[in-house]
Every structure is written in C-alpha cells, then in structure tokens.
C-alpha cells in the first residue's frame, strides 16, 4: 500500500501539487510506464536517431558525418527521384479510387439490394488476406501471355497489355491490386458513416420531392463527410508507406519503373547503404508530414464551415 501511495502521488505530483494527505490517485501515472518504455525505446528513439544517421555514412558500427550528402543524392539520382514521384502517384491513385469506389459500393450495399450480407462479406474479405499472397496471386493473373486477365480479355477480342512488364503501366497495375484489396475497408467505413445519418434527412428530402441523385449529392455525400475524411487520410498514408505489395509483385521493376520510397529504403538497406536508407526514411517522413498535415487541416476546416 505504501509503495502504491508513493508511486501514485509521484506520478500525480509531476502534474500538479498534491496535498500531502490526499488518497493515492485511482489513476496512477505508472500505468503509462510499460507502454511508454516500449514505444519510447523501439519507436521514438530510432525515429530521433534517424535524423542524425541520415546525415552520415553508416556501417552500423561506425558512422561518418557527411552533412546533407545523402539527401542531395536522393534528389540527384534519377531512380531515387522516380521513387519519390511514384510514391505520390501511387498514394493519389489508390486513395482516389478507394474513396470513389468505396462510397459507391457503400451506397449500393445500404440500399434494398438482394444478397447484401454476401456482397458485404465478399468485398471485405480481401482486407484480411495476406498482402504477399494477394500480390503473388495477381502477379500470376496478370501474366502477359498466360495470365487469366489477358486470356479473359482475349476472349472478348481485346489484346491485354503487359500489366506488370510494361514500365509505364506496372505502377498502376500494382495500385489497382491495392484498390482490390483495400476497397473493402473504405466500404465498411462508408457504410458505418451512412448508417449513422438520421433518417429524418431522407424523410425531409422525400417530402421535398428529391430524386435519388439529389438524395445522394445533397444528403448522403455531405453528411458522411467524416467517413470521407477517414478514408482519404487512412488510404493516403497507407499509399505513401506501401511496401509489401510492390515488393511481392514487381520488386520495383521493370527497371525502377515501380519503385517507391519504401522499396528504395529496402534496396539501399540490402545494398548496405544504411545512411542513405535512413535518409530515405526521413524523406518519407517529410513527405507524409508535408502532404498529410495540410490535407487533414483542409478536410477538417471545410467541415467546420458547413
């Protein structure tokens, strides 16, 4: 008990002066400790250390300070810049498609449609499947000559492209698979948002004689805005950080055509350029900060005005 009292007041004492005779706080500060130690040691400390090591040539055993050379290299080497541009394209394409398709599917799956439960399950299940497994499966399905997708297209008389072998297409093919796997999450988020809209709004719209299209644009769309914000931000961050799907499908190839920052980080790590790899981490961090923070503020501000 006395130990409890000490630790309890010590935690609280740091926050505000506590009268000597007060009971121990029922919400002791040491409850933070286990989480804080693990998070601080394995997440915060490496993140802070990365700021220093990104400025060095590093072998894990010793590091030489070389200033901003790593970042200069990042902006000079064409294949590294390519990775940077690809990352942004990938994030924009995947989050854009997930918003549009997720919203349409959610509207469809909250309407009076038959087999709703089956459809919801089938759309959502890929979210839970291993990304590497999905990547390998679609690599086979997208095989330029024997793949099922192109054979299906051939039956319709269309000559399918080399989805993953054509350098100008590979990144978008991977992005499409990402949407296939992730649209279920966007859909259930939108379903939760749409179900939470009070029925009175639709009632009022019906009395005013609104068409289905007007219902969608003037009731559903504005009122499920929180869901839109969640979907955009989640899938945008996910898109910027994406690694496993690209690595399972193309390894950044053909050439460097589908490299993203995350795959560059892994390649530089494999090659033993630890400083450059860490600089890649810092670049990715900066990219997320520069794009996501303003995006969040923009999305939340407009909400305040409505």
């Amino acid at each position, binding site marked *: 008990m006395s130990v409890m009292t000490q630790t309890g007041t010590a935690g609280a004492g740091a926050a505000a002066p506590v009268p000597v005779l007060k*009971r121990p706080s029922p919400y*002791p500060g040491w409850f933070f400790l*286990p989480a804080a130690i693990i998070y601080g*040691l394995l997440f915060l400390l490496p993140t802070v*250390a990365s700021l220093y090591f990104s400025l060095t040539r590093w072998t894990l055993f010793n590091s030489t300070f070389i200033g901003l050379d790593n970042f200069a290299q990042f902006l000079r080497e064409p294949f590294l810049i390519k990775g940077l541009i690809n990352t942004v394209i990938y994030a924009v394409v995947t989050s854009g498609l997930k918003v549009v398709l997720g919203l349409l599917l959610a509207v469809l799956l909250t309407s009076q449609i038959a087999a709703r439960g089956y*459809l919801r399950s089938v759309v959502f299940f890929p979210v839970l499947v291993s990304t590497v497994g999905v990547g390998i499966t679609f690599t086979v399905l997208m095989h330029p000559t024997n793949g099922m997708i192109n054979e299906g297209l051939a039956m319709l008389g269309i000559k399918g492209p080399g989805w993953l072998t054509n350098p100008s297409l590979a990144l978008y093919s991977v992005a499409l698979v990402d949407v296939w796997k992730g649209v279920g999450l966007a859909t259930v988020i939108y379903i939760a948002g749409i179900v939470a809209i009070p029925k009175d709004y639709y009632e009022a719209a019906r009395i005013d004689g609104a068409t289905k299209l007007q219902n969608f644009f003037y009731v559903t769309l504005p009122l499920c805005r929180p869901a839109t914000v969640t979907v955009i931000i989640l899938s945008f*961050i996910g898109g910027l950080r994406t690694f496993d799907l690209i690595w399972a499908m193309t390894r950044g190839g053909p050439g460097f055509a589908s490299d993203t920052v995350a795959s560059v980080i892994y390649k530089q790590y494999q090659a033993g350029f630890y400083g450059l790899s*860490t600089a890649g981490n810092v670049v990715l961090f900066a990219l997320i900060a520069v794009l996501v923070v303003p995006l969040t503020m923009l999305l939340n501000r407009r909400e305040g005005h409505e």
Partner: protein
Amino acid sequence: MSLVRKYGLSVLAILVSAVVFLIPFAFIIMMAFKDRTQAQLLDFSWPQGFHLWTNIVEVVTTRNWMLLTAFINSSILTVASVTLLVIFAAMVGFVLQRRKTRFNGLIEFFILAGLMIPPAVVPTIWLLQGIGLFGKLHGLILVEVAYGLPFSILLYRAFIATIPRELDEAAIIDGARPFDVFFRVILPLLWPVTVTNIVVQSVAIFNDFTNPLYYLPGNANATVQLTLYNFQSQFNTSYNLLFTNIALITIPPLVVFLFFNRQIVAGMTAGAVKG
C-alpha cells in the same frame, strides 16, 4: 418495371462481385489442387486429378519443415504481441481518459505521430542489435507492440469514455487499490473492445510481412509471410506448391473472419462516424 430494375441491379452486383472478388480465390484453390505440369499453364481450369494432399505434404516438409516452424513462430508472435498490446494499451487508455493533466496533449501527439510516421528501420535494427534482440522473436514481439500501441490506445480510450466514473469511485470507496480498480473492475467491462482489439491486431500481425523481413532475417525463425516470400523464388516452376502455401496461410484469417466479422468491422470503422 421497378421490380425488374431492382432485381436486375442485384443480379448484376452479384455477377460482378463473383468475377472480381471470388474468381481470384477460386483460382488459388484450384491451383492448390493441381499437379505441377498443369499448374504451370497458369490457366483457370478444372484440376485434373486430386493433388491437394501431396501438395500440402510437399510444401510442409520442404526445407526441413520450414512452414511448420513458421506457423509456430507466427502463432507465438501473434499471441504474445497481442497479449502485451491489450494490457498495456488498456492501461494507458484508462488513465489517459480519466485523468486530465497537462501531459495529455503530449501523449496524444505521440499517439498521432505513431499512427503517421513510418518507422525508422535501420536505426531500429541498430538499436535491437545494441540490446541483443535483433533477429530474435522476442525482439520482433516488442517491435510489433510498439507499432500497434497507438491504434489500440485510441480504441480503448474511446470505449472507456462510455464507462461511468461512478464505477471507479464505488470501487475506491469499497477500499480497492488502483491496481484492483483497473484489473478487477474496469478491464472486465472492456471485454467488447478487447475482442475488437485482439481480432484486428492479430490479423495485422499475422499478416505482417515488412517487419519480419527487416527484423527477423534467416530461415530458422521465419514467419509464415516470409515463407511465402522465400518459396516465391524457390518454387518458381512449382506454382501448385506456391498456391498451396497461399491457401494454407489464408485459413487463419478466414476462420477469424467467419467468427468475428462484426468485431473486425467495428474496430476498423471506429472513428468513421465522429471523424
């Protein structure tokens, strides 16, 4: 007319969903049934003969039962990480929601940072090497806990806000110590959100590929996702085995999906409504 339109849309939706979402899974299963020569054609055809069992035996026993070791490793990793995550996140969520101090803002900042910032990989490896945990399963367990904490804490904090403070106060008046207030009064009440946490984090950690790839190199302690990656190069000509492996490691998420669909959706959509 409207009847036709209504059912027309339903039929169309079912057909499209079958082509887009079911055929890839049917393809995986059919490939797992085929023998090597037929699988190599990569086409969507009915398996000639039943080779599933020989495929399973071959894929499990290859490389000294590597897949079996991997399943054991993945199970230990998932169970241990999720257990620690649930307890530590619930403790933080509880105190964070109940006690308002000037540190709350800072803690919330760290939670958001944890959700957004990509982990600094090489410095983490350097650190793990420094404390002797690099390439060890318990090292990876701690890493998974560190990366999963922010999301779990958010889930817990939101749920704890719905539990009345009077319960804590009643327990305190009855003489319960802070430790007992939490572990004997509050934690049992958090069961619904605990289930959500367990399910969502288990699926995420079981499916995790990137972190084992970086922090757990070597065949001896591969996880199931890594076996898939290793077999991808080894079984380049044996697609039947590769797809048998995919089918096998899809079973745990499928089981979770069949039993806990509602909790998964609840966990993943948390925050969608209030934004």
